[in-house]
C-alpha cells in the first residue's frame, strides 16, 4: 500500500513533471495566463495522460519493441483528439482560446515520456497511479501559476474580481514573459524547500 501511494506522491513532488523534470514547459507558459485556461488544460492533460498510460500498459505485451513509439503516438493522438472534440462541444469559449495547446498535448513530452519510461514497463494499476500522480503534479503547478498571474495581471481569479477596482493590473503578468518569471520562482522555491528538508534530516 505504501509503495502504491509513493507512486502517486512521486508525480506530485519528487518527480514533478514541470518543476523537477522540467519537461513540456511551452504549454505551461502559454496556458497559465488565466485560471480557466489552466483548468481546461489540466483536464485535457490528465484525461490524455491517465488513459494513455492505462492503454499502453495493458497492451504492452503485444507491442513489438521496434514500433513502440509510433504505437504510443497513435494511442496518445486518439485520446488528444477525443479531449479536443469534447472540449470544443462543451467548453467552446475556453477551447477557442487554448485550442492549439490542447491539440499539442499529442507531442507533449511528459506524456510520451511517461508512456515510454513507466507504462511500457509496469502493470496497469501502477500505470494508472503514475498517471494520476503525474496529472496532479502537472495540474497543481499550472493552476498555482495561473492564480498568481491572473491575480496580479488582471485583478481576478477565475474571472471573479478579487483585487479592489483601484488596483491597476500589471499587464506583464498575463503576457508570456511572466510565465517564465513565475515558473522560475516556483522551481527555485521547491528546490530550496526540498534542500532545507534534506539538511534538517541530517
Amino acid at each position, binding site marked *: 500500500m505504501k509503495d502504491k501511494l509513493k507512486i502517486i506522491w512521486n508525480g506530485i513532488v519528487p518527480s514533478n513533471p514541470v518543476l523537477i523534470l522540467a519537461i513540456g514547459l511551452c504549454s505551461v507558459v502559454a496556458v497559465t*495566463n*488565466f485560471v480557466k485556461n489552466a483548468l481546461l488544460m489540466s483536464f485535457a492533460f490528465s484525461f490524455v495522460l491517465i488513459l494513455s498510460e492505462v492503454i499502453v500498459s495493458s*497492451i504492452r505485451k*503485444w*507491442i*513489438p519493441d*521496434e*514500433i513502440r513509439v*509510433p*504505437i504510443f503516438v*497513435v*494511442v496518445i*493522438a*486518439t485520446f488528444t*483528439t*477525443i479531449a479536443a*472534440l*469534447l472540449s*470544443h*462541444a*462543451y467548453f*467552446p469559449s475556453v477551447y*477557442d482560446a487554448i485550442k492549439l495547446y490542447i491539440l499539442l498535448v499529442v507531442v507533449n513530452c511528459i506524456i510520451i515520456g511517461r508512456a515510454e519510461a513507466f507504462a511500457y514497463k509496469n502493470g496497469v494499476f501502477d500505470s494508472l497511479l503514475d498517471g494520476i500522480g503525474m496529472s496532479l503534479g502537472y495540474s497543481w503547478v499550472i493552476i498555482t501559476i495561473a492564480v498568481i498571474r491572473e491575480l496580479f*495581471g*488582471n485583478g481576478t481569479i477565475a474571472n471573479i474580481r478579487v483585487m479592489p477596482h483601484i488596483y491597476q*493590473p500589471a*499587464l506583464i503578468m*498575463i*503576457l508570456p514573459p511572466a510565465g517564465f518569471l513565475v515558473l522560475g520562482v516556483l522551481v527555485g522555491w521547491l528546490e530550496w524547500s526540498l534542500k532545507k528538508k534534506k539538511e534538517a534530516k541530517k
Partner: protein
Amino acid sequence: MNKIVKLAVVLGVISAIAGGILAGVYQFTAPVIEARNQAALKAGLLEVFPGNYKFSELKIKLKSPDPAVTFGKIYKVEDSSGNLVGMILDVTTPGDQAPIEMLVGVNRNGTINGVKILKSLETPGLGANASNPHYYVNKKKKITFLGQFKGKKVTDPFIPKKDVIAITGATITSTAVSRGVKAAGVAAYEYMQKAGGS
C-alpha cells in the same frame, strides 16, 4: 520479411481501432458543436441588430473597398413586414497577431448599427479590450470600444485618434477594427442603395 509484415499488421490493427473510436466520438460531438455554432451565430446577429428582426443569408459576393479586409457570409435584416432594414457582414480584418473576425451590422440609412467580435487573438489586457464589455473608451457615458461605432455614418473617416477613440496601448487593434467596420459599412450601404426597395 515476416517481421515487417507482423509489425505492419500490429500497427494497422491498433490504428484501425483508434480510428473507429474517434469516428464514434466525432458522431457524438459533431451535432453538439454544430448546434453551439448556430446558437452563437444567432446570438451574434441579434447583438448587432437587436430587436424583432428576421435574418436570412444573402447569396451574393460584395467586393471589399479595402484590400486588407475580406467579407465572409452576408445576411440581410428584415422587419416583420418584410422591409429591408439593414445588412450584417461577416468581416475578417488583419489584427495584431491573427485575423480578427467580426460581425458588422449596417443600417439602410448608411449608419453602423452594431459590431461584435467573433474571433480574435489580440494581446490580453491591451488589444483584447476591444471585445471587453467592461472596458470603456468613454468612462462617463460607459461607451465600449465597439459601442462607439453605433450610429456612426459610413462616410466618416474611421481613423483612430481622430473620429474613433483608440484603445490605450492597442493602436494596431483599434485601426484594424475601424478599417473592417468602415469597409463593411461602405460596401453594404452601396449595395443597399443599388438594391433599392427589394
